[in-house]
């Protein structure tokens, strides 16, 4: 089957979704995806970030689709034409979804362990605005302790439900789920039971935001101060192939190996993730590569850093000048000739 996305044509097999086709093309046509995860059955369709405009349904039925479609759950048809980044309507929709995702988000990136590898940060960078129109009080949830390995920050959650799917599909006894409904829907165990089984740690890797983070890595470092290396070990529970995040000679964190769409290549077990933090536990393969513009590259690789000059003095003076104007003070209080300035 042939499909065209933003003018680029590609041959795909029947059953391919628009998002998968776009990822095959790569680059700017790829819609952002916050809830879709190719390795989890039934994921996708919820966040509405990946909406695209189907301008031609197929060769057989060329009518355009009236509504924007979620590309992650819409199958390609032969001859389908799709506008992604090229469509102003799609751009507008992505901006809308970004705004909706942020109105109740705590925006606590400075203290969030996910910062630097957060899909919501990337989405906001691309489609967000720095000002908010939301003047209401933000929604908050009571904290819940879900055990020694995983930290749950419900206030940051975007309800992609990937963690629920991980528990359903990787483990045999799911103990957490989505509680309540509407804007008070939340991820919870309801009875504060530790989420404890061999593969629960993958909830951290699939979480697109900082709602589920690694408790053993909590506040240890910013991700961009760590050096990621691919490493492996013999493991009888999982593939044993991981990325270890090092600070000096210390392994501070172990995660699955994530591709450019931040999906793990293979799921790993909790033993590898939480219990093997010695360098001697691992065979280090070499540095893990990241996309060119990832913040994780900032301190690690060969990129030349411009010297940044922070003109503190100058900016303080500028600020004072603006304040003075706000309170209608003359710039020089002693200058009696210039009362109206």
């Amino acid at each position: 089957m042939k499909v065209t996305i933003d003018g680029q044509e590609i041959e795909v097999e029947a059953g391919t979704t628009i998002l998968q086709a776009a990822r095959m093309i790569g680059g700017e046509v790829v819609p952002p995806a916050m809830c879709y995860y190719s390795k989890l059955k039934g994921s996708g369709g919820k966040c509405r970030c990946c909406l695209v405009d189907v301008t031609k349904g197929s060769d057989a039925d060329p009518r355009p689709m009236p509504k924007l479609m979620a590309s992650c759950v819409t199958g390609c048809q032969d001859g389908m034409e799709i506008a992604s980044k090229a469509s102003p309507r799609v751009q507008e929709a992505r901006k809308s979804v970004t705004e909706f995702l942020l109105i109740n988000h705590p925006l606590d990136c400075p203290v969030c362990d996910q910062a630097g590898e957060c899909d919501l940060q990337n989405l906001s960078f691309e489609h967000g605005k720095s000002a908010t129109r939301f003047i209401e009080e933000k929604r908050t949830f009571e904290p819940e302790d879900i055990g020694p390995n995983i930290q749950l920050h419900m206030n940051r959650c975007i309800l992609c439900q990937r963690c629920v799917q991980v528990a359903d599909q990787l483990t045999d006894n799911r103990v957490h789920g989505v509680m309540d409904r509407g804007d008070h829907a939340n991820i919870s165990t309801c009875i504060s039971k530790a989420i404890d089984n061999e593969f629960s740690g993958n909830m951290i890797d699939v979480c697109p935001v900082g709602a589920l983070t690694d408790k053993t890595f909590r506040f240890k470092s910013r991700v961009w101060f760590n050096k990621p290396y691919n490493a492996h070990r013999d493991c009888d529970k999982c593939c044993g192939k991981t990325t270890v995040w090092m600070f000096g000679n210390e392994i501070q964190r172990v995660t699955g190996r994530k591709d450019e769409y931040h999906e793990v290549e293979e799921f790993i077990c909790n033993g590898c993730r939480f219990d093997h933090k010695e360098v001697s536990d691992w065979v280090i393969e070499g540095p893990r590569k990241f996309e060119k513009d990832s913040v994780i590259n900032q301190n690690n690789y060969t990129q030349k850093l411009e010297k940044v000059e922070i003109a503190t003095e100058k900016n303080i003076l500028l600020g004072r000048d603006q304040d003075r104007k706000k309170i209608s003070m003359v710039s020089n209080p002693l200058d009696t000739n210039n009362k109206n300035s």
Partner: protein
Amino acid sequence: MSQKILLDKINIPGIKTYEVYRQNGGYASVEKALKTLTPDEVVEEVKTSGLRGRGGAGFPAGMKWSFIDKKSGKPRHLVCNADESEPGTFKDRYLMELIPHLLIEGMITSSYALGANRSYIYIRGEYMWVYKILERAINEAKAAGFLGKNILGSGFDLELYVHCGAGAYICGEETALIESLEGKRGNPRIKPPFPAISGLWANPTVVNNVETISAVPWIVNNSGAEYAKIGIGRSTGTKLISASGHVKNPGVYEIEMGLSVYEFMNSDEYLGGMSSDRPLKAFVPGGSSVPVLPAHLIYKTAAGEDRLMSYESLSDGGFATGSMLGSGGFIVYNDTSCIVRNTWNFSRFYHHESCGQCTPCREGTGWMEKVLHRIENGHGREEDIELLLSIQSKIEGNTICPLGDAAAWPVAAAIRHFREEFEYHIRFPEKIKNRDHFVAEPFEKVKHLVSKVIV
């Protein structure tokens, strides 16, 4: 008197019981269909009748039936949507409570047409006493041989059950209803696949409203062509209207499509005019989700033609000057009612009922409610009106199911037709402190205040 199809026997004493219902010609359509018609012939009759889905969307029922996947060989199901919860709508309950066997007869005939051997009536949990009425009626029908194995010796088997919800408007959406019937949270599914291909337990399923299914017996007995003669244009047959608000005789009425809105509002056969003789200010013709219309667009369309009770006439003028027939929930407002308060009330409803699955609806409905609540309580800002329009446009069309649109439309329509009232709330907060602020001083009397230019 116009023709009654659904309510013609409603006043017969004891019609609730099987015996009386049967003595008055009940279950004739089952006999006729099972003994003389093939399933496809029943589908054809319904197609010919032009019967459209009475739940709100108005999709042709016969066409919906013809989409059901008969090739896969999987069991098929008919599910009746009795999760009536659209504000302003209470017709299905009236029908089920007073003449339960009509729905059961419709379910049997329709299940036969679709080849469904296991069908369900999904009723909202709050109608618990109606649930019991239906359960008893099903037992009566079963005892009389109209349900179970080999019905009337035709070889057709059908098990019919009632299933109750537990308080969620969203379960009126057909895929959420199916999820709920499977014992899950009422989260609408992503379509495609449509229920006709993969519905209840991944089997081909048709979901129809109570009123739609209740019209099937008459169509089978009297032919689709006869049904199509009633009504006007593509709005065939009769429609139940639930009338509420400031009218003299609120209640459920069966009308022939094409009746004029003026006659429906004012004749003594129907609503009998406004209660307490106050002037008409606005009305919502099809349940809370459809756009509200101001007085001057109610009896006449923008083009000056008479506004009729039909799918086409009520939507004449698009959203700019029209509305929709929807589910037939007819809410009437007099001049003491406050449109801002009413819009906030609807917004609160949608906020409360959003399932929380997709972003625009989960976040947007709550945001709209909060802004409207501020305006209604005297804390509005001039920019809030544009903000509301912006939020609603960001929800509309971007959600998984139609609840997003249903939440967005009433807000847009209220601002479109009653913008001055919003401005009044924002500029004169001290005048709207009490919730009944328009009772002593209807907006018409203070309207001049907002027409002044504010610098």
